[in-house]
């Protein structure tokens, strides 16, 4: 029982059994954990096409994409100027307006506050637009500007720009 060579052999056998057992257990757990990630059909709900011909200057609409609200705003001249003249160095999440739009008058944003996921106010004409004339999140008080950039409050990032393209002058495809 206690001779040296024997115990070495045993250590080896014990260790290799435990390792194989551990690998096996991990391989067994993996599919269970993976099953909790978004399913194929959830991933497939990828794109939404939107007709934007009826949106007037200064108006916004909200559409649903992947279960999330997407804001589409046709910006006024003033709003565009306001977004452009901001000094980038002052921003929490520095980004030029030009890199956030494809055409100056069309601003397309995921309408989900980057703090804890509320939908910011500012889509309806009667809504509060916050201190920077864009959107205001009432949950914990984040203010976004006319480019959807975070200016004040706890949110760490600008409102996200979803992947989108102009199919023609009056239709946008999101996703």
């Amino acid at each position, binding site marked *: 029982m206690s001779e040296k060579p024997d115990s070495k052999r045993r250590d080896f056998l014990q260790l290799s059994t435990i390792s194989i057992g551990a690998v096996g257990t991990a391989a067994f757990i993996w599919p269970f954990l993976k099953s909790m990630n978004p*399913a194929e059909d959830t991933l497939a709900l990828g794109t939404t096409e939107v007709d934007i011909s009826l949106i007037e200057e200064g108006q916004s609409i909200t559409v649903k994409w*992947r*279960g999330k609200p997407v804001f589409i705003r046709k910006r006024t001249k003033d709003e565009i100027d306001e977004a452009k003249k901001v000094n980038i160095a002052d921003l929490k999440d520095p980004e030029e307006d030009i890199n956030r739009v494809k055409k100056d008058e069309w601003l397309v944003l995921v309408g989900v506050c980057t703090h804890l*996921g*509320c939908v*910011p106010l500012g889509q309806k004409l009667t809504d509060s637009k916050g201190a920077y004339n864009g959107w205001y999140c*009432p949950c914990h*008080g984040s203010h976004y500007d006319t480019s959807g950039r975070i200016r004040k409050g*706890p949110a760490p990032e600008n409102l996200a720009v979803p992947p989108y393209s102009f199919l023609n002058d009056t239709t946008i495809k999101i996703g």
Partner: protein
Amino acid sequence: MSGNSEPRKYKNPVLNWIEFRLPIISYFQKEYGEYPMPKNCNYFWSFGALATITLITMIVSGIFLAMNYTPHTEMAFDSVERIMRDVNYGWLLRYIHSNGASFFFIIVFIHIVRAMYYGSYKYPRELNWILGVFIFLLMMATSFLGYTLPWGQMSYWGATVITNLFSAIPIVGEGLKTWLLGDYTVGNATLNRFFALHYVLPFVIFGVVGLHVAAVHVHGSNNPAGIDIRSKNDTVNFFPYMLIKDTIAVCVFGVLISAVIFFGPNLMAEVDNYIPADPLVTPAHIVPNWYLAPFYAILRAVPDKLGGVLLMFGAIAILFVLPWLDTSKVRSCNFRPMYKWFMMLFFVNFFVLGYVGMLPAEGLYLLIARIGLVYYFGFFLIITPFIGWIEKPKTLPLSISDVYLGGGKESPSPVSQKEIH
């Protein structure tokens, strides 16, 4: 617990037959019959029994609700309304369950206050305390999951805000959140799994409660004087004395909860949760369940996303190490002239945090939340170790019986108590 000792003999042949094969009869006799309770325990010691009964009530009412509930985004709200309007006594089941959750937390808060004030968390009951904090965590998770199920506006947006907390974790956060939700937003996959977990967690809690009670029974219960049991003179048997006392507590509790269930069933509910969930519109003011509000206040008091999340979870995690932060050997605050007042202030502070946690996080409320946050952590990390070093405790009574003879500085209790024994 009886292990290798002689099996007990019972007159009843059936009991005897069972006992010989599985010594469960003697186990219950020892742990819930003869179990010696310190005779000076006050009604604060009934809240463990109350919590157990409430847990059972939650499980029973939950199972019957589940028979009529549908965990699907298109049907969940309507199925709950059907429970309220059409299912026989469905309204009662639901009001028992929703108010039961609130009362469960009231009871457990008082139970924790008891443990803190009388120093029950100290040697040799640290593991008992740790299991208790663990139960508290599981309870918060369970009721958060349950609150999602009616699929009203508060359900939806509460779930959104809380699951988004995980996205604050660097690098893995966003992926972790998606994994928890099973979707990019709170959706049908989320509702389904929340229901599955909400169903099973209470049974896990039940198991941990078993360990929690077993752990306290090893060295016996603490008591208002915070001193050890010295002799049989210091105790009364659980049966019948404590059982009767706990039964009285249960009766009073029954009256209180019935008053709420029948006369104010929505007092502790949010009206917005009677509006079906709308993923495109956030309510103007998201309010957590009142029992999560103190922690929510801490979250919002910090102007940084990750910092807020860390401090919120830290506020709970710090409870785990309380036994090692307290440097005083004296358990009961009755004999700790300085710490007693800081402890009271801690309870008041926690209440205030809860209050501002339900109000918008701006102006004065935000300032109060920040002060409350500082005191919360200051109490654990600075005051508790420091007072233990500098405080001069009052003289402890020699034994629990001595309490009734005027030992220690506590005022003597009615003589009649002494004569029970």
